[in-house]
């Protein structure tokens, strides 16, 4: 039974309510603070009204309100993510899906509006289960990887995260190392490939590696050597179908006319590109050109019927790797024909 307390006792035991004083220091007057809070809303309303007005005047959409809302959504998403503090979990590879998806709007904008990517064959990607995507690699920076990842997310009925494998040199670079890991990439090591496939992930490899990204502009769309076919051996061991991917358009984003090898060696980079804009224009030279892209996912090459020890059969492995390479090369030529022009 709870004993009744007298009012005097209650008063004695109760703590005095603390008066929340405004923090010391300069504060703007109240109406201005209120306006600060509501400014984003007013700005959006004004832009909306302007968009309506411009449509009435010109008869077409000059300002796309939906796009602006996407930007606002992106900013709010980032603020939400910052509020998580340390209360989030990454997988064992250091992948943070929530954080990665917050950047999706940016990459979707690049995908739809900047490079106007047309994707075919997305139905060849399994909705669940493992698969090894094998693509050609081009452009000085790996934008093709981001666009393939975005393509699977945008075009596939079951959006999935693609885990790309990157050269280990990038894992030693500041900023790159954590950004790549956080967005789901792993080291291009056979053990990492095997582990990702065993977790039934979609894994993306570029067997050309930096030989592909660092090739000069006049060699565009000519595939380099496909490593030593290690990706085929890994796929056979993991019983994962191989899906060849042809990417067209990535070659023109940075037309590389030269390579300053001594500078590259100095910074520990695989190559130091010279383009018409880099390094002459400084940071502006990093902006990729808006070429027209096409991505084609080819029908999967099944390896499940092969015995596990076929992975040691170097002849078979190289033959399969060459098949995959031919499929990709053919796909590139077909898609180049379908493209009306480099920037159209």
């Amino acid at each position: 039974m709870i004993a009744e307390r007298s009012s005097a006792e209650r008063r004695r035991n109760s703590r005095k309510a603390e008066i929340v004083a405004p923090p010391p220091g300069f504060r703007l007057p109240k109406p201005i603070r209120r306006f600060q809070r509501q400014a984003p809303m007013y700005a959006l309303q004004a832009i909306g009204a302007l968009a309506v007005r411009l449509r009435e005047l010109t008869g077409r959409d000059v300002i796309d309100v939906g796009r602006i809302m996407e930007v606002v959504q992106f900013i709010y998403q980032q603020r939400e993510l910052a509020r998580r503090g340390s209360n989030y979990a990454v997988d064992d590879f250091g992948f943070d899906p929530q954080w990665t998806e917050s950047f999706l709007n940016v990459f979707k904008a690049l995908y739809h509006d900047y490079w106007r990517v047309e994707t075919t064959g997305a139905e060849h990607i399994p909705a669940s289960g493992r698969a090894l995507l094998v693509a050609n690699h081009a452009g000085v920076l790996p934008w093709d990887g981001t666009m393939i990842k975005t393509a699977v997310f945008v075009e596939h009925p079951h959006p999935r995260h693609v885990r790309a494998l990157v050269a280990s040199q990038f894992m030693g670079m500041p900023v790159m190392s954590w950004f790549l890991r956080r967005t789901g990439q792993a080291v291009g090591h056979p053990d990492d490939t095997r582990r990702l496939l065993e977790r039934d992930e979609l894994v993306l490899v570029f067997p050309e590696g930096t030989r592909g990204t660092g090739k000069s502009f006049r060699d565009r769309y000519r595939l380099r050597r496909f490593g030593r076919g290690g990706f085929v051996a890994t796929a056979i061991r993991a019983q994962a179908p191989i899906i060849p991917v042809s990417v067209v358009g990535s070659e023109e984003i940075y037309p590389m006319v030269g390579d300053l090898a001594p500078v590259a060696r100095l910074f520990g980079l695989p190559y130091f590109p010279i383009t018409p804009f880099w390094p002459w224009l400084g940071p502006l030279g990093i902006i990729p050109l808006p070429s027209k892209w096409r991505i084609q996912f080819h029908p999967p090459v099944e390896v499940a019927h092969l015995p596990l020890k076929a992975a040691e059969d170097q002849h078979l492995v190289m033959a399969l790797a060459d098949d995959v390479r031919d499929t990709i090369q053919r796909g590139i030529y077909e898609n180049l024909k379908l493209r009306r022009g480099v920037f159209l």
Partner: protein
Amino acid sequence: MLFGCDVADPVSAIEAMDFVHADTRLSVIGKLIRQLHIDTVVHLAVMVDAAHGERSVHETDVIGTMNVLVGCAAPSSPVRRLVVKSSQAIYGAGANDPSFFSEEMINWDKTTSGLTRDLLEMEQLVSEFALRNESCGVTVLRLGSRVSEDTSLARYLSLPVVPTFAGFDPRLQLLHEDDAADVIVRATVGDHSGAFNVAGDGVVLLSQAIDIMGGRAAPILPPYARWFSRLALRLLAGVDVPAHLADMIAFGSVMDCSRLAADFGWRPAYSSRSAMDALALGKQVELIEAPSPQQEYELQVYLQQRRRRERQLSN
């Protein structure tokens, strides 16, 4: 019968154990083993935190282990089981490494320095011993980084402002002290030969770990020439960051513990994340009153658990 052996007195009084003052760096161990008919040797006098100076780490880890092995390897030796403590630091940490280290991924010819090289040398001795003495089962436990209060990593993470390498946020894998003690007991009473990675499930990012500790990450250290950052940390922050730890907080190192789960049928009770939370809560050390050298702690926890069990049996 149980015999303890250390250079210092045990911190807490332990019943059911005879204590001998002995240094593993001297050959007295061999005499003890033969005269007392020891059948199981648990070798924990291995420094896995190089904060005590590289010279003494080498003496303890390599020369000390050699003496223990020589003691166990004598003809007509009574030893049937040997448990050796090792560390995750044996794999080193680098940008070129795979995302997970499994037990056979040791890079023997890596030109490493400090603790990693000493541990490599030590494990080489142990594997040679295992090859020559087939009657003796050898278990090597590669324990993950621990964050009890007196490890370099814990001291580093406990700084109010934690300087980190600019542009790096590696994955850390941690092991709680209780799990470390637990796995040593399991290896001692069980029959599992070979090397085993032991660490908590999952990973925790360095930035998360700093946040859990309530500190602030300051990405100010230049990512190149890590010896310079180590010197700066020692002089300015008073924290000694050994070479293997500097590599770890730049590139991270994560082990694959599936062999442990398969062979021992046991997983650490604390995940990496909860080990970090435990450190933040300060609930880490409940058994020990005074700070003690690390190798002692594990022995004490084992003995106290044993005593508790005995008391339960007698009740």
